[in-house]
């Protein structure tokens, strides 16, 4: 008795179900018609975006806020190339995602056939791995591998290219329950000897600083980190992608380091004699000029990716492993033999925090963008999900939001993709239906995926877009002011803006506006209470800069604009 054969498109959908996929974001086209035909009949929920880039960012936001693999789907050629920015964004931030693309038939590949693009070639440098499926018999196993690769080890996006004939042809559907990949075996357990050495170094250190990165979030190690800090009583700074791993306003928190980090975090790092970096990769936005970074510190570098060790900075003690597993083991040792707080160092940190707090000039006539974020904290108690676009508003969101919870701050760090925040917020909201999801946007960035108003309107995805509207490409303007003698080339958007309230209304989305400080709270409350998507146009101080700032390529303790210096 031979098993019944199933069409490739159906095998795909069944495989996705086996992987626990319940939602996908996508856009149809000729080469994925068969897949869409099966989506029509499937109980997997498909969200039709209005631009494929948004599908990728939505899948990304879905993944960041849950830890599950986000899935997006596009047709061949232009559909696939439109995904590329979203895939690259996920790749830079190690986000588990599976991108499915249609492709011309295997017979036509290589002939410049209509809507053919070599998406496997194009995305090779921006994916963790990618596949071209050439035979329907390989389809189920390829999907299995794609999800396995996306979510294990250092997570990342995996693209699966699906020629149309593969979706039409039939094979016996047999979903494998394991993968056999002799060349892919990530290490998750840290070396016990190294872990014991690390603890010894931590005990001996006088001025340790912990740096927590996106890897702590990615491996769901936030609880373990909190316990680790409680056991060691060390100050901890979270990178942009690590925000929420540790409570932002806690006594031990140094908040964010780096280019727009807090002065006290940067000073503490420069004074430290030991850095314990966990799931962070010493990005140049954190280190500034490398050979001036943390000049007195030895480095314990914990990372799942061996290639990160020694890439930017020499570590005395590398531990390759999953952040959660390594922290668990460290905590077990620390519980057996408790550690004294390093009081003099903590006193130094206390003083640094007192002397160099984040700081902005309050104004009663003009809305300060930082004030808007403080009101958002007040209204949400730091418990909403926050996404951001890219620019000054993003940095203020990082600095001023009360990051309490892991996976609640969703921002494009490595690639810095304008247009990310709004579609990412859609993904976050789809994954977390009852939650409050706020996109902190700039007026420039918001226009990069503004068409998604149509998507949120249609599905009533109630994300709150809060535009800190300075009518500039603010971050670029800031650099032009500081480093290009105020030659504002191509950054002034005054008089070139659409009326965001009217735009929202055109899509049947609630549009609100605040132009004076006293209106902010009321307008934001209305936005949050509204049972549906909202666009809030907040007219903020036009030329407010993000401070402190480490000029690119400088040492991180040579900040400009810190308190007492601006």
């Amino acid at each position: 008795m031979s098993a019944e054969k199933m069409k490739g498109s159906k095998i795909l959908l069944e495989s996705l179900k086996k992987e626990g996929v319940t939602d996908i974001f996508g856009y149809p086209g000729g080469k994925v018609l068969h897949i869409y035909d099966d989506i029509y009949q499937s109980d997997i929920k498909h969200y039709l975006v209005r631009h494929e880039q948004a599908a990728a960012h939505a899948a990304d936001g879905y993944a960041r806020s849950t830890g599950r693999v986000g899935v997006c789907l596009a047709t061949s050629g232009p559909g696939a190339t439109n995904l590329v920015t979203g895939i690259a964004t996920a790749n830079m931030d190690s986000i588990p995602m599976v991108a499915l693309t249609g492709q011309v038939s295997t017979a036509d590949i290589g002939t410049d056939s209509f809507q053919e693009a070599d998406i496997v070639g194009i995305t090779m440098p921006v994916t963790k791995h990618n596949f071209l499926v050439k035979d329907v018999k390989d389809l189920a196993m390829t999907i299995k591998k794609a999800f396995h690769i996306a979510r294990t080890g250092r997570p990342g996006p995996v693209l699966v290219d699906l020629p149309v004939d593969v979706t039409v042809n039939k094979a016996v559907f047999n979903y494998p329950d394991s993968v056999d990949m002799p060349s892919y075996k990530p290490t998750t357990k840290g070396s016990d000897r190294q872990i014991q050495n690390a603890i010894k170094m931590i005990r001996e250190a006088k001025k340790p600083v912990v740096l927590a990165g996106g890897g702590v979030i990615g491996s769901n190690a936030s609880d373990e980190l909190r316990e680790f800090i409680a056991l060691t009583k060390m100050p901890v700074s979270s990178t942009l992608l690590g925000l929420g791993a540790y409570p932002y306003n806690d006594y031990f928190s140094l908040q964010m380091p780096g280019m727009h980090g807090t002065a006290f975090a940067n000073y503490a790092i420069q004074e430290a004699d030991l850095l314990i970096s966990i799931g962070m990769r010493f990005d140049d936005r954190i280190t500034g000029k490398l050979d001036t970074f943390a000049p007195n510190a030895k480095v314990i570098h914990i990372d799942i990716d061996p290639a990160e060790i020694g890439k930017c900075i020499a570590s005395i003690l590398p531990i390759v492993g999953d952040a959660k597993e390594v922290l668990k083991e460290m905590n077990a040792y620390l519980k057996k033999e408790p550690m004294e707080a390093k009081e003099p160092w903590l006193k130094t940190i206390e003083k640094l925090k007192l002397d160099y707090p984040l700081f902005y000039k309050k104004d009663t006539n003009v809305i300060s963008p930082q004030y808007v974020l403080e009101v958002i904290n007040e209204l949400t108690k730091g418990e909403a999900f926050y996404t951001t676009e890219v620019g000054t508003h993003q940095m203020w969101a990082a600095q001023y939001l009360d990051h309490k919870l892991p996976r609640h701050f969703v921002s494009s760090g490595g690639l810095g993709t304008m247009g990310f925040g709004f579609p990412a917020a859609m993904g976050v909201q789809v994954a977390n239906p009852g939650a409050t999801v706020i996109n902190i946007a700039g007026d420039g960035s918001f226009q990069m995926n503004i068409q998604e108003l149509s998507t949120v309107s249609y599905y009533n995805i109630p994300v709150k877009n809060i535009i800190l509207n300075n009518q500039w490409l603010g971050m670029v303007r800031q650099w032009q002011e500081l480093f290009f003698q105020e030659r504002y080339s191509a950054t002034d958007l005054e008089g070139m803006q659409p009326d965001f309230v009217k735009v929202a209304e055109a899509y049947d989305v609630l549009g609100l506006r605040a132009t004076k400080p006293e209106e902010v709270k009321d307008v934001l409350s209305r936005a949050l209470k509204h049972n549906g998507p909202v666009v809030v146009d907040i007219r903020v101080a036009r030329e407010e800069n993000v401070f402190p700032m480490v000029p690119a390529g400088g040492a991180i303790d040579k900040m400009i604009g810190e308190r007492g210096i601006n």
Partner: protein
Amino acid sequence: MRHVLSVVVENKPGVLARIASLFSRRGFNIDSLAVGATEKPEFSRITLVVTGEDLVIEQITKQLYKLIDTYKVTDLTAVKHIEREMLLVKVSINPNTRSEAIEIVDIFRGKIIDVAEKNMTVEITGDYDKNEGFLSLLKKFGIIEIVRTGTVAIQRGTGN
């Protein structure tokens, strides 16, 4: 320093493109590259010659490992190994230089595989130093064309 890396990869389409893409993206230089089948049909071996400081070589090795299709990377420079590369060299000759050129070819145990009126083509196999030495001696005759296979290398003894 010059390193010879022996990289065992899954024998799949696109693997070479992944390695080339990795090197170009990360700004690593390849001095030579040779690909071929191995004793196991599911794997291919790529022998890479790269030059760089130890830290760079370490990064190259780790980045190669990071590719999903990479099974094993061995830096043969660190162990006892044998290297070979084959060269085909076309050199100018005339009645006055011919015998000296042939003598050099003999000393290096090269083989003359083609002779024309004004040039001859030599095949030679050897390690990097031998081949470079050979080429430098031929230079004065005028080298018309060089074709090299790229280095292949194997660990001495039983390996492992």
